[in-house]
């Protein structure tokens, strides 16, 4: 199944301004302004300038937080987004409870404590972002992430992503029962997405610093229903109204 662009001109718009360019503009702007965020629950709050609102929206990081105060602009990032912007793009500092910026390994430990599957989810997130796919939460579709070819305003998400790991203590329980498996394949197909399983593998035992991520690999597999009556991989049914996102 190919990309489903939202309008006639969407593909051209996306080609004219690739996601890597948009992210690069955001990155340099945030570095210039010395942006700092702080941990809050299972996420990071970021105060940014008015110009940066558009850049974050374009690059599809976080969600704006609406307040009555028109002088400030707030964004909330997920843990994966925040760590990606901090550790990979190096454009955001993150402040801890003691008001001083956290070191990479401190932040890493902190996020792993906040989310048991953080390591695997971050590896999956950064893997897709590293290939310039836009990654958003998949909770609307009962999966871990959804992946877009470009900005969600231009194109529907192509993949429903499940992060899989068989590492001890970090097993993802998804797709282990036939009922869940059939349900996930069925649902992904009916919203015109291909189910993509990212299997995170490692030989590393030490996970105390983010440098351990290099020892992890990501294997990409699609799961599709095959219909022997039609002798082809099943094409999800495209319904105009049921497949927003």
């Amino acid at each position: 199944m190919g990309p489903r662009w939202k309008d006639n001109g969407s593909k051209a718009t996306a080609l004219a301004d690739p996601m890597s360019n948009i992210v690069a503009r955001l990155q340099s702007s945030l570095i210039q302004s010395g942006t700092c965020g702080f941990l809050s629950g299972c996420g990071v709050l970021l105060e940014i300038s008015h110009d940066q609102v558009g850049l974050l929206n374009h690059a599809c990081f976080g969600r704006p937080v609406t307040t009555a105060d028109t002088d400030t602009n707030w964004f909330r990032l997920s843990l994966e987004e925040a760590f990606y912007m901090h550790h990979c793009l190096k454009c955001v500092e993150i402040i801890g409870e003691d008001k001083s910026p956290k070191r990479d390994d401190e932040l890493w430990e902190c996020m792993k404590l906040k989310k048991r599957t953080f390591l695997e989810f971050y590896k999956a997130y950064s893997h897709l972002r590293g290939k310039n796919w836009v990654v958003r939460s998949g909770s609307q579709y009962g999966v871990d992430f959804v992946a877009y070819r470009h900005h969600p305003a231009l194109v529907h998400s192509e993949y429903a992503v499940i992060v899989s790991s068989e590492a001890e203590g970090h097993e993802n329980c998804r797709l282990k029962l036939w009922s869940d498996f059939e349900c996930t394949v069925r649902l992904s197909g009916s919203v015109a997405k291909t189910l993509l399983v990212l299997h995170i593998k490692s030989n590393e035992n030490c996970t105390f610093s983010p440098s351990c991520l290099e020892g992890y690999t990501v294997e990409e597999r699609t799961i599709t229903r095959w219909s022997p009556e039609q002798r082809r991989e099943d094409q999800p049914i495209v319904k105009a109204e049921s497949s927003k996102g």
Partner: protein
Amino acid sequence: MMEVDAWENSSDGTVISEDDFQDRKDDEDPYSLGSIPKMQFRKDVSKACWDAEMGMAEIIEMKGGLWTTTGIVRRRKLYCSIEETLYLAERGALLLLDVNHTPISLRAIYEMVGERSSGCCWESFEAYRHLKSLGYIVGRHGVPWSMKKEKGSCESTYPQGTQENNGVAQRDLEENVSLTGLLGNMQINEVKLAFDVYLPNSKFRKSSPGDPSFVLCLTRFHPPLNEELEDLERKCNGIPLKFCHIEHGRVSFFSFNKIALPILP
């Protein structure tokens, strides 16, 4: 009269009268659940003799064209696996006899499948039947159709030694000895490579079948784990795999394809 016949055949099918050797029509039964492809009944009835030691049926009277894609050839004799035997018996295309040439009832064949003694359980039979009735050519995984290599035919790239017990199977079959070693082993694993499946092909030849289109795997309890997938993929050396899940008689097939997501601009 029509009603009675229809009931007789759909419920038991041990006795099929002459009138019923005709293709059924789709619209015959408005209550049909439609999950099982239409059954075609045969007028030509072949005969086979069950060899309990081999766990296979030796064909003694061959009728109709179906034998080009059914049965394995060893020493100029044709043998049918239990699933092939039952499939043909269900369709009225095969009369199975015991060593004393007494007919074996369909019920007895169902019981043989239930006992899993010949390397086939009910679920693998359902998978076999589903693909067969759609025209696919289906053979036991790793069991060659024939020991004869035809001159000038394309040498199959299909690895003949992929299953540990495959070599044993070939030798056993060559020497016409028991198959039980191979068939017994097939039940141990949670996930097994069950069938080599070829697309419908009127030019199919047992002497040069080529590589199967895919290998069908059956899972028993849960969907395959990544480790299991990788292990099976290694054993199949590049032949695609498909997985089959059967519940309440509904047969579903899935592919787990490794991909490389493109790096976008």
